[in-house]
């Protein structure tokens, strides 16, 4: 079965372009602000949207995304509201894939079956759950696949060749290569290392490989896009949202448009990378 994610990566590949994956946290700083930014993302060049499910204890995230989760929770974010954001987005966009990203506990607490049903109904395409390695596949990964969702696995520099087949076994949609040992938004990856890692992963799978963690500028995004099928930017966008908050923690007038301008520049970096290289 070809999913929205499969189609999107295939279409980008056919056009000779890398896929730009953007991350924002649902409900940061509030529901309406997220919805406005969300609706603008495809127009600003986002090919795939990762929507963060806020969690009190985001252990794999750096300061920018930690702060965005806290803002969202203070702003009243809940799992149901996150799913409602997807539903509202889908009313106007049936093409752009949405991947929910977060930690297992809020899903487990809601109940896996209940969550999967609600996610499929809302129009979610895939899941990235940081604290569910292949060893725990029966928890959510297998039920999610059966529900028709892609389960996108993280591969890391510590995932050696021996371990890769297990990591890739139940992965679909794309492989998310975490380019550094560390947390989101910290050190920036070395393009050479990334290229080597991506070809290593590609020896084990035909799935597209998107690379994230530590990509902050259009130039870095372009560099990564030479080596990989896609580039993921999260902390840098979330950091822009933080800059656009007023003293009450609300998005300033015109804030969403300015955040989307940054997204557009990053998107240009990703999309023009190979064009520029060919010239």
């Amino acid at each position, binding site marked *: 079965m070809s999913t929205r994610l499969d189609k999107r990566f295939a279409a980008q590949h056919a056009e000779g372009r890398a896929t730009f994956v953007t991350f924002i946290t649902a409900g940061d700083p509030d529901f309406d602000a997220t919805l406005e930014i969300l609706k603008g993302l495809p127009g600003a060049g986002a090919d795939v949207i990762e929507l963060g499910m806020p969690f009190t204890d985001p252990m794999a995230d750096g300061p920018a995304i930690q702060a965005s989760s806290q803002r969202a929770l203070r702003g009243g974010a809940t799992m149901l509201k996150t799913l409602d954001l997807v539903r509202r987005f889908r009313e106007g966009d049936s093409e752009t894939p949405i991947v929910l990203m977060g930690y*297992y506990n809020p899903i487990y*607490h809601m109940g896996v079956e209940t969550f999967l049903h609600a996610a499929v109904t809302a129009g979610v395409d895939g899941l990235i759950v940081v604290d569910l390695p292949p060893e725990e596949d029966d928890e959510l990964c297998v039920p999610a696949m059966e529900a028709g969702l892609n389960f996108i696995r993280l591969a890391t520099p*510590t995932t050696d060749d021996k371990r890769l087949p297990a990591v890739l076994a139940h992965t679909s949609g794309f492989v998310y290569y975490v380019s550094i040992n560390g947390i989101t938004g910290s050190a920036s990856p070395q393009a050479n290392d990334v290229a080597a890692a991506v070809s290593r992963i590609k020896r084990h799978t035909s799935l597209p490989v998107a690379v994230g963690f530590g990509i902050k500028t259009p130039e870095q995004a372009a560099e990564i896009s030479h080596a990989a099928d896609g580039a993921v930017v999260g902390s840098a966008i979330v950091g822009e949202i933080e800059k656009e908050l007023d003293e009450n923690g609300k998005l300033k007038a015109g804030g969403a448009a300015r955040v989307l301008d940054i997204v557009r520049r990053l998107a240009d970096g990703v999309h023009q990378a190979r064009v520029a290289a060919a010239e």
Partner: protein
Amino acid sequence: MTVNAPSHPNSYRTGPDDRGRFGIFGGRFVAETLMPLILDLEAAYDAAKNDPDFHAEIQDLHTHYIGRPSPLYYAERLTKKFGGAKIYLKRDELNHTGSHKINNCIGQILLARRMGKTRIIAETGAGQHGVATATVAALFGLPCVVYMGATDIERQKPNVFRMKLLGAEVVPVTSGSGTLKDAMNEALRDWVTNVDNTYYLIGTVAGPHPYPTLVRDFQSVIGRETKEQMMTREGRLPDSLVACIGGGSNAMGLFHPFLDDDGVRIIGVEAAGHGIETGEHSASLAGGSPGVLHGNRTYLLQDDDGQILEGHSISAGLDYPGIGPEHAWLRDIGRVEYVSATDKEALEAFQLCSKLEGIIPALEPAHALAYVSKIAPDLPKDHLLVMNMCGRGDKDVFAVAEHLGVKL
């Protein structure tokens, strides 16, 4: 029943399974970056467990560095005061560094050395585990970074200075509420960043498999000694065991060797803070529900949306919204009873023990004693009760003075 009685065909002591689970609890809920590391740790621990040299090294340090075995002390005046059960205190507060935490740190630092790790990190709440970790890092000349919530640093200043004297770097954690759970998040973030050289020395029977198992095994010396000492003193096993529970390492250490001894009643005491009904407590079993945090599934304090709630306890060492997964399992199968004591009850027990026995307990075991004071009067005089005195109270005197309205 004797010590040598055959163990059950269905033992309570065989867990975890090969996925690191105790029933549905435990497991390995970690980011992929850490997964290869905890598999390495599991392999290293399995090898060490079967190596007599490893056990000999531990034994040597127990005897000459920690000062084990710790005494099993008959608390005659507390016994008289309560007028019922015969109260014994397992004196783990007499260990070097003043608590049971050193038992685990000795085991893990030896493991870290076997694995060739050159840098030690740890989280700490009250600072007891941080001090114990800084101590063994000093002993073996390894650099040590301790993550500690900013709130806890404020209320446990003497331990912060102690860690610095021991050469550790203490990193204040301001994210979240600045307490133990946030310190654990930050330690995990460090580990994921420094995978090559760093050993994460977890202080309690929680975290991803194999931590709950190896910490339990290193702490089980408490229960093994208690068994032998009680046989020598009284010629039989105790009738009941009582220990306080935050993450639950001192309790698991005392309980585990006795789990298959049917006649032994086992009681864990959680921190009820201002009272379970107020919602301001750290009793994950009494007031929480199953969830996944810090690498394992266990009972957690959480809201309707699966967001983790802050614990509250007068004792920084019990102030954690989770509990070790083996405790969660023992509760669900009914082998161990879990009860709670409030801040106020712990403060009373703290003073009582100081005045009657000349032992200033840490606020953590003061919770256990508070519960002992409730049940002991109604128990027969030949009932043998062992309470784990898992830490001494020097670290708490400033906090207690403040609660009692005394200006130092």
